[in-house]
């Protein structure tokens, strides 16, 4: 068996006239949390269903550890998935839901109790699922994904419906799972949910890949070499830096944004010319900003539907 990875190669899937996924390729590496991001309707769920062998792609492959999902003999021990937390029979107890899943792989019942404890559902699982809150359903769904102790995890919008404490919990959990050497793919339509969690991002829009890169790279690219400068002598600073080759834009009455000059050079120039400066700093973009920049032209229901896709 090869490494626990998810490999999607040239995946294409259309429903009627709508192209849901259009030639998508990416790989999820073990030991990382990979965020799978795109606006609603970008094709995230379709891709995940294709990876799990639920939807047959029109073209391309989706492999788990080098094999199609349908060839796995004990899939729960290789992939844990949370697709739709609401997929529960309302009159079945949460614990019984996990029990039939455990039976399907011949896993012992104490494993069910282990995962229930892990997600903090050991008490609630004795009640019927019909009365669960969305957060409880999410936790039960995560328990189901963890049941087989799988090296690959696929979670579709796991943060939905969780309270702030729950969100913190799941972040810690995902980091720990990745640290153990598992490949974790987490989808979300909100970039901010993945801040501090994901190591790597796969961004899609309208079924196509927009970005597939490490979070650190992405942030650096979005931040660019912009330097933020606060000074009382706005005009002098502007003239000086423009003369030295920088591009300067006025942000507000006291702040300037400079590109084209490294921060050290700016400080050197300004101190030589004795221009008073109260604050100099490299501008740091948020993940949200990076994402907005990437998807600006790829948003499906956006204002420019014929806009060019940004491909890295």
């Amino acid at each position, binding site marked *: 068996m090869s*490494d*626990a990875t998810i490999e999607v190669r040239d995946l294409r899937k259309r429903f009627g006239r709508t192209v849901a996924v259009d030639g998508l390729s990416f790989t999820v*590496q*073990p*030991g990382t949390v990979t965020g799978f991001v795109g606006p609603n309707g970008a094709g995230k769920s379709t891709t995940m*269903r294709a990876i*799990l*062998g*639920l*939807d*047959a792609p029109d073209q391309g492959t989706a492999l788990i550890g080098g094999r199609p*999902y*349908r*060839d*796995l*003999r*004990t*899939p*729960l*021990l*290789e*992939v844990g*998935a949370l*697709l*739709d937390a*609401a*997929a*529960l*029979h*309302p*009159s*079945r*107890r949460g614990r*019984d*839901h996990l*029990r*039939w*899943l455990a*039976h*399907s*792989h*011949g*896993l*012992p019942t104490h*494993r069910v109790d282990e995962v229930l404890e892990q997600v903090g559902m050991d008490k609630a699982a004795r009640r019927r699922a019909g009365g669960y809150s969305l957060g409880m359903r999410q936790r039960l769904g995560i328990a*189901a994904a963890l049941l*087989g*102790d*799988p*090296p690959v995890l696929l979670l579709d919008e796991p943060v939905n419906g969780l309270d702030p404490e729950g969100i913190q919990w799941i972040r810690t959990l995902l980091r720990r799972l990745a640290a*153990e*050497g*598992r490949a974790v793919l987490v989808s979300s339509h909100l970039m901010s949910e993945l801040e501090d969690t994901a*190591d790597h991002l796969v961004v899609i829009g309208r079924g196509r890949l927009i970005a597939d890169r*490490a979070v*650190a790279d992405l942030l650096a690219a979005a931040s660019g070499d912009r330097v933020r400068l606060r000074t009382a002598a706005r005009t002098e600073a502007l003239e000086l830096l423009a003369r030295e080759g920088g591009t300067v834009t006025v942000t507000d009455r006291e702040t300037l944004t400079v590109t084209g000059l490294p921060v050290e050079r700016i400080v050197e120039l300004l101190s030589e010319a004795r221009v008073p400066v109260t604050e100099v700093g490299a501008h740091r973009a948020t993940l949200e900003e990076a994402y907005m920049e990437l998807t600006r032209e790829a948003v499906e229901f956006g204002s420019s539907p014929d806009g060019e896709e940004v491909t890295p």
Partner: protein
Amino acid sequence: MTTTLTPYRSRLHPARAGFARLLRAEWAKFWTVRAWLLVLAVAAAVTVVISQLGASGSIDTGAGELIAGPDGTVVRDAFRFTHRPLTGDGSITVRVTGLKGVRGGLESWAKAGIIVKKDLRPGSPYAAVLGTPDHGVRMQWNFTQDTAGSTADVASAPRWLRLTRKGDLLTGYESADGRTWTKIKEVRLDGLPRTVEVGPFVATPDHQKLHRSFGGTSETSGGGEVTGTFGHLSLRGTSAAARWTSTDVSGPIPAGVREGATGRTAVSASGSYTLTGHGDIAPDETVGDTVQMSFQGVFVGVLFMVALGALFVTSEYKRGLIRTTFTATPGRVRVLAAKTLVIATVTFVVGLIATAVAFPLAQSRLRANGYKPPAFPDYSLLDATALRAVVGSAVLLSLVAVLALAVGALVRSSAGTIATVLVLVILPQILAFALPLPTAHWLLRLTPAAAYAIQQGLTYYPQVEHNCLPESGCYPMAPWNGLLVLVAYAAVALLLAGWRLRRRDV
């Protein structure tokens, strides 16, 4: 960032072989939904209760006493008999020269021939060689047994018939010219005394007319009368009487049909005998089927089984749970097989409990209402007929659930599935009670409703013409064949479902 990590491996190991695991998972899915267990219990209870209700009617045997044949079958044994006693071995030969109805119509099973009978009491053992208008020459014995000879029609061309007795062996022959004889059959009649009654006879079943429309069927039967002519009547062997005497076996036509009509026998100068008579020598199929009457609750049980079968799969589609199922077991056909096996077993076991409880209760209730031996057999649960009906009804309930499961996997909606399957199983019955008989019979052959034939307790003999009325519990197919129709429906639906599941996205 990319540190070398040892890829993670699951620390768990699966126990058990693949399909056993799957069965266990599907079984766990079933029993953990309380409503389904409740439906099962209600199904069993309702089946038993309605069966009692169905058995609560009292008997209306109409005309007189019932006659039991040598093996206990209820029979009709009425005919015009011109006879002499025969002691020891011997043979009787006759040339049947004509057979016609007294007032025009001739029933297809009207009979003219020769008979060897233990005595003149109705229901006693006999063997006969006879001609019929539509079914050729036959040898029949002890009411239920029948063998075909040639296809000659005695109503249009004369035919020679011969019956010989040698100990317990009786042999029937026929001939076109009285010289070359063809053996029809040799049969053994146990318990024949040394002296028996032999001679020519005529008989004809009643003419039956049927009016059917929604809201009721009326069946009228006219007492048919038939005349047969016989020539060259000869008896070989020892007879205590020198002359032929004539008797109406079972007496005159019973009251209510045509009062007091008796048979007639005339002898012409040339030695030709003309016999006129009524009645029939055959099993009586107009009595109620007490086995079938004990299973009326199954019609209602079906409703719940259809619901269970459908919901076991459609509830998963409704909530998207089917994705979890197919993620845990990507082999979708295997999932379908496991689901089928679980629902089939559960519904069969519960159905069997229900029918096994309902049947003896209904039987004792029927007995209390006058359906008593000897006319009606006293069935115990382990009699072959009863056991077939009890187990068969449980199989029927289970197959209906399987059909619903398969249709559910195809249609994916509970409302559509339940309505389709129920209409398929129940509506043919309702329509069969109202539409003209041939159409009704086709409905009960081609739709899953054919399976109810498994509940029939009466044997319907081919040598008896009768209106097989669905409302009297008669089905046009033999019990197991009827059940096979439902098996075929379920199998086809399962195949389609399997084929569709493999291809379709979920």
